[in-house]
C-alpha cells in the first residue's frame, strides 16, 4: 500500500470505519469468505446492514480470489431492513411507558 493511500485511506465500511487496506490485509491473512470477513472486520454489522460495504467487499474479494462474484457465498440478510427504534414495535399505549 502506497504512502498516499495511508494518508487518505479508502473507506469501504463507513459504519465501522474499515478501509480497503484492512479488507485486503484480512483476505491475505486467510479470511477468504464473506462470513468470516464480516465477523473479523465487522463489515455489514453497523447501521447500514451491509448495503454500502457489502457490494464493495464482494468485488474486492472476487478480484483477489480471481472468482466471479456469483461464486461467493453471500451472508444472510437479517431483519429489520434498516434500523428501527424500539418504540415502533411497542403496541399503542405502551409507548408512553405505561403498563
Amino acid at each position, binding site marked *: 500500500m502506497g504512502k498516499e493511500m495511508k494518508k487518505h485511506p479508502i473507506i469501504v465500511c463507513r459504519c465501522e470505519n474499515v478501509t480497503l487496506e484492512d479488507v485486503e490485509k484480512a483476505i491475505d491473512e486467510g479470511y477468504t469468505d464473506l462470513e468470516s470477513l464480516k465477523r473479523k472486520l465487522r463489515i455489514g454489522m453497523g447501521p447500514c446492514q451491509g448495503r454500502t460495504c457489502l457490494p464493495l467487499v464482494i468485488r474486492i474479494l472476487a478480484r483477489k480470489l480471481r472468482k466471479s462474484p456469483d461464486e461467493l457465498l453471500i451472508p444472510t440478510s437479517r431483519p429489520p431492513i434498516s434500523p428501527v427504534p*424500539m418504540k415502533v414495535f411497542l403496541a399503542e399505549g405502551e409507548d408512553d411507558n405505561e403498563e
Partner: protein
Amino acid sequence: MIMKSELIIIGGGIVGLYSAYFLAEKGFNDILILEKSYLGSGSTFRCATGIRASFTTEEHIVLLKESINLWKKLSRELGFYYEQGGYIWLFRNEEQLKAFTEFSKLHNKFGVPTRIISVDEIVEKVPMINTEGLVGGLFDPIAGKASPFQAVFSLENALKDKGVKIRTLTRVKKIIAENGRIKGVETDSGTFEADKVLIAAGYGSRELAKTINVDLPLNNVPHHALVTEKFKEAFKPLLIDWTYSAYIVQVQHGNFLMGMDIEEKPQQPLYQRVDFIPKMARVATRLFPWMRNVNVLRYWTGYYVMSPDRHPIIGPVEEVDGLYIATGFSGHGFMMAPIAGEVVSEWIVDGKPKYRVAENLTLRRIKEGKFIHEKAVFG
C-alpha cells in the same frame, strides 16, 4: 487418496475447536476437523456470549467455575475479548427471591460467590435501570462475556500453528465403524479414515450417531435474539429478567444484545417471527425506558440443543470403541466449551476426566435414566 488421522472431530463450532485445542496441548495433534459450513456457523456465532457458573446442579457449577478460569487464561494467552462483568438476575416477586436464595447457597458451597442483592445495589451497578416492580436480585460476580467471533478466529490460528487440520464446507454423511470399532467418516468430498471420532455437531450429532445405531435423545429448540446499534458502556453485567426469561447484555463493541424465551416447538426450521421484536421491546423498555429510542439493527435465530436433563452429553460411547460425543449443551455450549474441550481431551488421552462430576455427563446416564435436571435455563 484416503487421508488418515488419529482423530476426526465433526463440527467446527466452539466445542470442537476447544476439544482440538486441549488435545493438541497434550501433544495429541493428529486431528482433522470437519465443518459442513464455516467455523462457528451453527450455534456459536448466534449465541448470547454470556459465561456463568450460577447454575443449580453440582455438575454445572463445578465445571463452569473451571470453564471461567479457562476463559480468563485463554483469552489472555490467545488474545481475544473476554470480560468478567458479572451477571445480575432480576426478580419481581418473593417466590423468585426465595428460590434463588437457596440456589445461592448451593453456588457458595461449590465456590461460586453469588449473593442476593437489594434493589438499591442493583441501581448502584446499573444506574440506568427502571426498578419499578423489582424486589431484588442475585449478583454473580464471576460471570462474564466473550466475543465468539474473536474466540473462534484465535482458536483457528492456534490450532493451525499446532498442526491441526481444518476442512470447512465438508459435510459428514455417515460414520464408519467395523466390529464395534471406529474406522472413519464418509463425507460429500470423500472418505477420511481415523481411529477415533468426536461428534461435536450440535443437533446434527443426532443424525450422525444414528448412522452407527447410537441414539441421542436431543431436541433442537429455536431461540430468538436481537442486537441494537452501539453505545458507550452503559452497564457491565449481563442482566436476566427471570419473570420474562429474558436477558440483555452490552457486548464488546457497545451494542445491546438481548433475547427472551418465546414458545417454540422443537425440530422446527429457524423462522423469524413477527411477534418476537415487539415482545422483546416491551421487556427491554420496561427495564430501560430510554431504549424506546434505541434502534434495532438485527434479529436472528439459533437453536438450543436440549438434552433430556439440560446437561450436555460429553465423553465416550461404550458400544463403539473410539467414539466420543460432546453435544446437547442446552443453551450453554459457548460458556461451557473450554471445560467441555478439556474433559474431552482427558477422556481421549487419559481415559478419565480430572473432575469426578464430569463422569456423570456421559451418554450412560441417559440410557440408565439417571437425569440430573438443571433449573436455571433462560432466553
